[in-house]
């Protein structure tokens, strides 16, 4: 079976203006949302306390709220998690109670409501830890980008490295933007997923660049635009097949992996889709705009080496 019966000759670079407008539009919306709405940060970053309690039967949220405010947790945020038997409680810090002990009080309140309530999960993150994590997360992303910049710069050429990083930043901003736009909770696993998106999207871009480099060296005639276009066409079915297999497993993770892993799977799904698009349109246009030409990629040959090869 093949995706395309015949060789494709899609003029990707001819539509690069259109793609650029689309990309810029997406980035503006993403950044706008991040600035205006911000991210719905999880307690990993904000600090706070979260308790997940399992009940033997479906439980009404108002009764949970009532019980909690009777025990002095008037400002607790309560919601169902996954099923109606699961309740997620977010607690604000209290004046005279040690933060690490809040969860114990809340859980014993829930046991007062239903004696066989089951403590499924507690997450408490102190404010100092949350701040550090936010900082470390930002730094990690920066280090990953720098590491990639250096590797691609060494293996290809600096313009490819810049192009790859532009594509990555494009993907990261749009992925985070979608989390902001729909106010999906952004927690530690989601941050990890965004870093994995960097890895994945780069994987795609590198494959495309590899072919571009090969074709620049092989094809004697044709300008940069034609060569980039035919490289994109040659790698098109690979790009789509790999994205497809990755999406298949991610969908499996999203639907069967459980509630906790939802955000993580979602970030990767968005990242893979955007990454596939960017490795075709953004990465290619970026190097074309920076004016990569055949001469830049010809392997440097020593003069006497060529003489030796002559019989």
């Amino acid at each position, binding site marked *: *079976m*093949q995706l395309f019966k015949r*060789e494709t000759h899609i003029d990707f670079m001819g539509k690069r203006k259109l793609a650029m407008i689309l990309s810029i539009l997406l980035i503006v919306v993403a950044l706008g949302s991040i600035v205006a709405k911000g991210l719905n940060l999880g307690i990993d970053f904000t600090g706070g306390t979260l308790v997940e309690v399992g009940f033997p039967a479906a439980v009404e949220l108002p009764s949970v709220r009532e019980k909690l405010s009777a025990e002095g947790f008037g400002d607790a945020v309560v919601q169902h998690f996954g099923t109606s038997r699961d309740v997620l409680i977010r607690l604000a*810090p209290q004046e005279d109670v040690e933060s*690490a*002990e809040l*969860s*114990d009080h809340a859980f014993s309140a829930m046991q007062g409501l239903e004696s066989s309530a*089951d*403590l499924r*999960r*507690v*997450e*408490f*993150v*102190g*404010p100092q*830890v949350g*701040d550090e*994590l936010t900082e*470390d997360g930002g*730094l*990690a992303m920066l*280090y*990953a980008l720098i*590491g*990639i910049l250096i*590797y*691609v710069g060494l*293996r290809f050429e600096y313009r490819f490295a810049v192009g790859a990083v532009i594509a990555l930043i494009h993907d990261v901003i749009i992925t985070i933007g979608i989390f902001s736009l729909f106010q999906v909770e952004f927690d530690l*696993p989601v941050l*990890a997923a965004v*870093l*994995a998106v960097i*890895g*994945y999207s*780069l*994987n795609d871009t*590198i*494959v495309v660049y*590899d*072919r571009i480099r090969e074709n620049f060296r092989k094809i004697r005639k044709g300008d940069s635009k034609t060569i980039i276009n035919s490289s994109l066409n*040659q*790698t098109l079915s*690979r790009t789509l*097949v*790999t994205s*497809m*297999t*990755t999406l*298949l*497993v*991610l969908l*499996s*993770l999203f639907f*069967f*992996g*459980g509630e*906790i*892993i939802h955000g993580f799977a979602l970030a990767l799904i968005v990242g893979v889709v955007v990454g596939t698009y960017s490795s075709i349109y953004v990465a290619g246009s970026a190097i074309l705009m920076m004016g990569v030409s055949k001469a830049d990629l010809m392997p440097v040959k020593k003069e006497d080496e060529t003489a030796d090869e002559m019989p």
Partner: protein
Amino acid sequence: MNRYPLWKNLLVAVVVLLGGLYALPNIFDQDPSMEVSAQRDAVIDLATQTRVEAALQKSGISSKGMSINNGKLLVRFTTSEDQLKAMDPIAAALGENYTQALTLLPDLPGWLSGLGAEPMYLGLDLRGGIHVLIDVDMEAALEQALERYSSDIRTLLRGEKVRYVRIGREGEAVIVKFNNAVKRDEASEIIGEEFRSLVMEDLDQGEDFLVKASLSPSDSREVKKFALQQNITTLRNRVNALGVSEPLIQQQGDRRIVVQLPGVQDPAKVKDLIGATATLEYRLADTEHSVEDAVNGRVPPGSRLYRERDGQPVLLKKQVIVTGDQIVDASSGFDQRSGQPSVSVSLDGIGAKRMRRMTNENVGKPMAVVFIENRTTTRMVNGQPEKVRSKVEEVISIANILEPFGRRFQTTGLDSTEEAHDLALLLRAGALAAPIEIVEERTIGPSLGQENIDQGFQSVMIGLALVMVFMAVYYRVFGLVADLALAMNLILVVALLSLLQATLTLPGIAGIVLTVGMAVDANVLIFERIREEIKNGSTPQASIQAGYEKAFSTIIDANVTTLIAAIVLFSFGTGPIKGFAITLALGILTSMFTAIVGTRAVINLIYGRKRVKSLAV
């Protein structure tokens, strides 16, 4: 012709065999078990085993087997009900000097465990348990060190009869003030001689002649290191006393300690024990002055007003007889005379000497035990984290000194046996060097842990099945070969995780799922190349050869960059994220082997030895 040299085929065969072997332990069931370990001078031997056997027989509980391993007695049960039921009879049979912990043991055949094969080490989010991150207050540790120095300097100068005006602390230094330069210089020399690690500085400020003694950078590093070490030791003692199998207590960064306790059911108790720093002080009661006057604000100098647990005011002498860090051992029990719960305490040499002198001089007078608990919390004040330290001091017992005593004695006046037990535990663990605070907690209940395992396993299997079907349909024979490699890759990842005993977490499982999706990428690259070569008119054999060769550098480049992302993730991440990074990195490495070398070996076997007209790709 495409043929692999024999060594390459052998390599593939050996890797497959070893991978299968070391992944194997993961499919065996785990027995609910109990781990019995000895405390202090108790030992585990065959006699212990016989006692446990007898106790189980008496209660009608059958065990699946028993063994002694690394000084621990492991008892296996068929059901977790039996495991729970066995808790009390075993505790009764062995007494206080043994602790029991519930755990799971893999039911491996002997030859497999003989090879060192073990199942994967599951993270807390999969097996359930408590993770706490503890922050050691280094500023307080430094303060305490300076406090010690200033009191030592005071004693030294008095002993040498050098008169000073004042000794105080200022920032990270001790300042001693003198009347004139001569005395100052003299003192400066004496102090410098005695405490070589202090950095001495002489300052003249108008009429004042000062010596500034500050901690050298290496000294303050040493203080911090010591504070961290002592806290880790203390935490280890406390945790061991809790009876948890496979506890993890580890330094993280330069001021944090991670404590992970798998399978613990009662987070409240753990936090109470870990978070509190408790110590005792023994003081004489002030019987010469009136308590009422003190309550009304006229506290006599040399005394201080305390309260008992029921709120009753007591007047105690300021002078401390013995403090908590002079306690070497403590155990709970019952007072022989009154039958009340009690804690018997042993003191070190200095403490014993002082206790003997004081009790000798004060027979018949009341002595009080003051329980001091330090807690630290961080609150947000105007958006800034601010540390609040609170100190609870209460008199837990007050009793007349009946006779002089020294090294060993008893404290009574506790509310319950439980309290006596906990107090003994706190005392035995000793005084902590610096205040600590819990800054992060993650607890996963056992039901959620099992659910995470089930859902994780399910999503891996469904994802794998989808990709396999897709590949088989899309690339036919070559797709099936890629499927074989994919399954092999999964087995290799599991084998490596088991072998390295790296922690498998829920994000780790997600990493495996992601690798399944991405591992076929190498094969997709190769197969697409082969198709291209065929389209360009190459022969089938040449196409295979060229396909593998041309895709190789692309695969390496693409995977190295993903590896960079995985390494960054690993170095920055905490527990669960590290798990994701590990499986992602391992998956990338093994997939390069299975997708390039592995599939080539199989393709060569299928097509390599004969003339082929067309390839099913």
